[in-house]
């Protein structure tokens, strides 16, 4: 009797266990989307910061006309990549320190729409060519002075002729940090010189030199230098140069 009971119980368990074999047969996301946001004026990739800099906005319209946006943050050098996406039809645009690709006027009408509708599958590359608010060029390399400070020369020009994006330059800074992830999100304020207000706005079109603060920099290490500037528009994104390394002996 007991044996019978156990064998019935066992067979029920086996049956229950084997009936649940429904496999999640939807393929794991394996589609890659990558690309570069470049400065239309210079053809170079547009430097940014990670986290609160350039990001790529995806609206997947395969299923819904009003999807919740999905964002991919760009690397510091203006490239981006995501290797774990599902295939699908996406409207892709970018946000950052440049003339917005999608603009809405104050009646809610879309007046500019440079977003791209792309079938994202396998490995898809989508590039954007944008007009940065500001274009910052190095004027020579940063110089390590005899007194242990670093002087950086640069020139800021407007990156766009669009009349709507000629707001005053609110901040200019030569960001200094001890690793190459340097920018407004990551810098050492003991050494970083900054300009704001009129001082910042007056730098436009001129070659400006700024020297690190706080006297001689501690030695036997490298410093990473990057110039950033921003205008008072929207989320006040910074435009940047690329990063240069200065070795302090």
């Amino acid at each position, binding site marked *: 009797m007991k044996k019978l009971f156990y064998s019935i119980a066992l067979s029920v368990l086996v049956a229950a266990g084997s009936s649940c074999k429904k496999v999640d047969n939807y393929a794991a996301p394996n589609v890659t989307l990558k690309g570069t946001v470049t400065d239309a004026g210079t053809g170079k990739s547009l430097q940014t910061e990670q986290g609160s800099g350039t990001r790529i906005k995806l609206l997947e319209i395969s299923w819904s006309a*009003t999807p*919740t946006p999905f964002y991919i943050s760009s690397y510091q050098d203006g490239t981006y990549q995501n290797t774990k996406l599902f295939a699908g039809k996406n409207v892709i645009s970018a*946000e950052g320190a440049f003339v917005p690709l999608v603009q809405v006027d104050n*009646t*809610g009408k879309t007046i500019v729409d440079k977003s791209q509708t792309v079938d994202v599958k396998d490995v898809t590359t989508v590039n954007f060519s944008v007009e940065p608010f500001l274009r910052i060029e190095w004027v020579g390399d940063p110089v390590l002075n005899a007194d242990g400070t670093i002087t950086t020369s640069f020139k800021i020009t407007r990156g766009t002729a669009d009349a709507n994006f000629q707001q005053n330059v609110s901040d200019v800074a030569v960001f200094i940090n001890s690793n190459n992830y340097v920018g407004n999100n990551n810098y050492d304020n003991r050494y970083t010189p900054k300009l704001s207000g009129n001082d910042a706005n007056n730098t436009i079109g001129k070659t400006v030199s700024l020297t690190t603060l706080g006297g001689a920099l501690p030695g036997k290490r490298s410093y990473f230098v990057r110039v950033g500037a921003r205008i008072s528009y929207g989320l006040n994104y910074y435009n940047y140069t690329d990063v240069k390394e200065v070795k302090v002996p």
Partner: protein
Amino acid sequence: MKKYSYMILAFLLCWTSACKKLDTLPPNIITDQDVFSNSAGIQAYMARMYAELPLEDFRYSPARGLNFFWIIAPVSATTGEALSRDQNGSMQENLTFDDRPTTWSLCYKTIRDANYFAENLPKYASNYTPDQVNAWLGEARFIRAVTYFALVKRYGGVPLVDKVLNYPEQSIAELRIPRSSEEKIYDLISSDLDYAYTNLPASNQVSRANKYAAAGFKSRAMLYAGTVAKYNNISLVDGSGNRLCGIPAAKAVTYFKAAYDAAALLDGKYSLYKKSWAAGDKNAQYQNYVNMFFDASSPENIFVRQYHYPESVHGYDAYNVPRQLMGANGYSSEVNPSLNFVEMFDGIPKNADGTIKTTTNGKYDLYTNTMDLFANAEPRLRATVVLPGDIMKGISIEIRRGIYTGPTAGGISPLLPAGSTAQYPTANIVQSANASQTPYKLPNGTTMNPAGLSGFFTGDGTCSVSGFSVRKYIVPDKPTSEVLENRSDQTWIELRYAEVLLNRAEAAVELNSLGQSDKSYVQDAFTQINQIRERAGADLLAGTTDVNIDVVRKERKKELGFENKQYWDMRRWRVADKEQNSTIYRTLMPFYSANDGKYFFDARLDERNSRYTFDVRWYYEQIPDGEIQKSQNLIQNPGY
């Protein structure tokens, strides 16, 4: 047989009469009739709505949201007013903590309660006098306005719900209400508060709104709207042209005028608390300022939230007393005012750049007692902050960083280079890692603990990490046995007359700067600021040429410090991202020089190296993703 049929029939007949009334409510459910038809029911309904009112009081912190007991990451430690071991940076309000409802959903619950009240009370109006009904309707509108204000200052434009929504009578599609423009929400707040002002009586039960509370809140809300119109440059416009984030700059004057006029309505109705104030007597002015926060009959209190042990409590004392007054829960010193905050006040020696002066010709100034540095400090500073060596609950609060044992001939040079965030050198300095200290033998043979009883301890943060402790709102006579979590019940003063005067002064200065000259705005701002300064015992402004927006804002920071207002002020002024940009706040460390037998002070950057950076996106907080999933018509704020 026939007999049985009759019996069955009779039996069945009994059934029909018994089933007379099946559709009846269980008696344990309270109906609208029970609540709205008598004033006790109304009182209960009101109590609930006031309890839900989203105030940033003793039970609020950005880390854990509204109405939560555990406040160890205080608001003031996100703004730089204070430093705290449990809050090391700036932050937007946490969306969810521990599955607690979000501010968004809490606010809409309260709005529904207010709308429901306003729609249902008139059905029972015959039970009351018209004045009663109007007053209660005014209160419901007041509550709705305050709640919408809590939403708009966080998220910008939000869905405007001004009536009760019903499901399933209304379809889901109908209930997915899109966001209104920020301007429309402020206009709703304005009209609700106007309604409340017209209908509310001049006085009401304590912790319920009267007409002047409505006017006072209006001055606050309209000032916010005006500053957003003037200083914001974030824009988000939906497909139908509603500006969800931002207000057209052209509206700034309208809003500032509304703020100014609303503040003027309180003229003569309230006054600054000066019961024990005496001209020229710094001690009386100090005591007066301390008392203000505990006097239930203060003529300055416009709108308060009361607490009462044991049914409605908070833990402000337990979390924030200095270390040496610590209660049995083991909490203390969560709010340690930063030197940046202390330096704003008058009456302390200062360098040309406004920072505190602790050295002369590169050598530390020496003082016999730590309080000597603050001998002439503004009374309001002493009443807001416990300075090292000042008295609290009858004992001297001892804050000392360590003992300097090095040579002192020719003076002591700064221990660290300016701007350093490094640890102090261990040579020539004796410090304590925690509260169990090894006394140090001084040259004169006596012994002294390296650190004060309230810190600074190098090993754990359970001490004053800034060199100061907070005094505002700490009950001066609470025995240590009662310094426990959920044991405090002092009243939270949400709106006091000083704020209304500051609102008025700020609106006036802004109107003047926008070219308005229909009133003598600068003169008016001058008068208001000097009223506040006089009560505070601060230096008075000499003339109207001294009045500018920075002066007004600084006065506001000083007067309303640690009242959870600066968190929002920094945002509406749109200065938070400038003030907090990889910023390290300053601390003041008192040392005892063993060979001099005197104290010196080292003003330095916070050695914990807590960097504060305010993300520009946070001016408009993230709408909870859960809300967007429920209603895809909600557009997320920029940058999230």
